């Protein structure tokens, strides 16, 4: 038992996980971010809470993608600056869970 516990946790890259999920990607993004409002945000909750890892800060700028969004809504609830405008994708588009 102790041997297993002392081994560091192996994290599966989120990209591998998302490969198991069926997406029908709409050309129109359903997430809009006011990246101006992100400047100087230290906490960046969206980066941590998004279960698809869609948000990241690169060179001080917020970058995000909507294509593999699991449509939970956690990002806009977590964002204290209300910088995320989040809506459902068009009907029939976006994620389709099959096995869950």
């Amino acid at each position, binding site marked *: *038992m*102790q041997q*297993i*516990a002392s*081994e560091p*946790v*192996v*994290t*599966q890259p*989120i990209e591998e*996980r*998302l490969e*198991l*999920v069926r997406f*029908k990607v709409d050309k129109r993004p359903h997430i809009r971010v006011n990246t101006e409002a992100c400047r100087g945000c230290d*906490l960046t*909750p969206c980066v*941590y*809470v998004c*279960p*698809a*890892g869609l948000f990241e800060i690169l060179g001080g700028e917020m970058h995000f993608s909507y294509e593999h969004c*699991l*449509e*939970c*809504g*956690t990002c806009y*609830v*977590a964002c204290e600056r209300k910088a995320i405008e989040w809506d*459902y*994708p*068009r*009907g*029939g588009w*976006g*994620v*389709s*869970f*099959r*096995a*869950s």
Partner: protein
Amino acid sequence: MHAQQQFDVIVVGAGPAGSSAALVLARAGLRVALIERGEYPGAKNVSGAVFYAPGLLAELLPTFWDEAPFERYITRRVLTFLGKESAFSLDFRTRHFAIPPYNGVTVLRPKFDRWLASKAAEAGALLITSTVVDDLLYEGERVIGVQCRRDDGALYAPVVIAADGANSFLAKKAGLQREFSAEEMSLGVKEVLRLGARTIEERFNLTGDEGMASEYVGEATGSVKGGAFLYTNRDTLSLGIIVQIASLAQQRVRPYELLDRFKQHPAVAPLVRDGVTLEYSAHMIPEGGWQLVPRLVRAGLLVAGDAAALVFAAGIFLEGMNFAVASGLAAAETVLEAHRHGDFSTTTLTGYQKRLEQSFVLQDLQRFRLTPAFVNNERLQNLYPELLCQAAEQVFRSEGRPRKKLGSTILTALRSKVSLWTLLRDGWQAGRALFF
């Protein structure tokens, strides 16, 4: 207005709340539109998923037990306090839960929700999939229909049931629900692992269609507030973590990393060994309890299921689908009454609120209203599970030395990290939250 765009009632969302409501309303002969944004009902839906009190639906559908795509009936309930390298479990099983109407069954939502919606459609509801409802339509203060995101997308009915899920956009647009705070909402992330029926039965001591619902607190989610679950389906396991969004953001941990940590915990790893991940999913859960439940009606509108935050997340209870079904049924009864009187005013529709107050839906939420805050107690989350494991370890440890009596062993272990006063205070709060 085209005749085909006029209905007696419009139900938004073909989850358990919406489809249950649509089923009853269509059976009563009403023209029902059941609108779903997914390609099929269940496409956007995620639960643990144990459907407790499935008898609620079996009463409506005589063929339920032959037809409903449920996975296993739950005869074994486990609650585990996880320490860093230890685990302390309460393990209960009974054959009394093995008889229809079962106490709880595991389901896979894409399959189950699709089936339930098909029952509503068979009863005569018009199921419209791949269609997002963007807003409500009003005449003065009264809701008179919905605006779908498509050409010619206005649909009309004297009453609308918003069962549009956890994000609750329609309830917010109607001014019934407020914006959520990150303290009262949780995120669930989940994996479905294929193990095979035989392995599941052997590994979890189950026979035939018996199933297990197992929940974890403590090290399950590291220092993030929340817990973990592991449920048995026929051939697969559903396993995941549920965490408070505010805590996740504060601790700066990614939810899928927590999921990996949980799967690799020494008490969990042997249970999921050789499991092949079939799917990864996520969903937001309105876990805030009583204080998160919005005003449930206004003229021409009722809110049901997750959209009304009718989720019972109270420590050892994690229930949602039964609350959704019961609220959908209560909404349907109220709509039928409103149609009989031709009156869709707030006053008439308030009958829905009264029905819920008389049922377990609002009674449980109110009675256990202190529990969500208690469950998020810092010590309950991060300290007591580890201390409990340490105390157990001291009790069971044999070192070839004289033993103390158990009370002294346990108290020494507990008091190393927490004062007796704090222990008593938390014990009192546990009592207030769950026991009396």
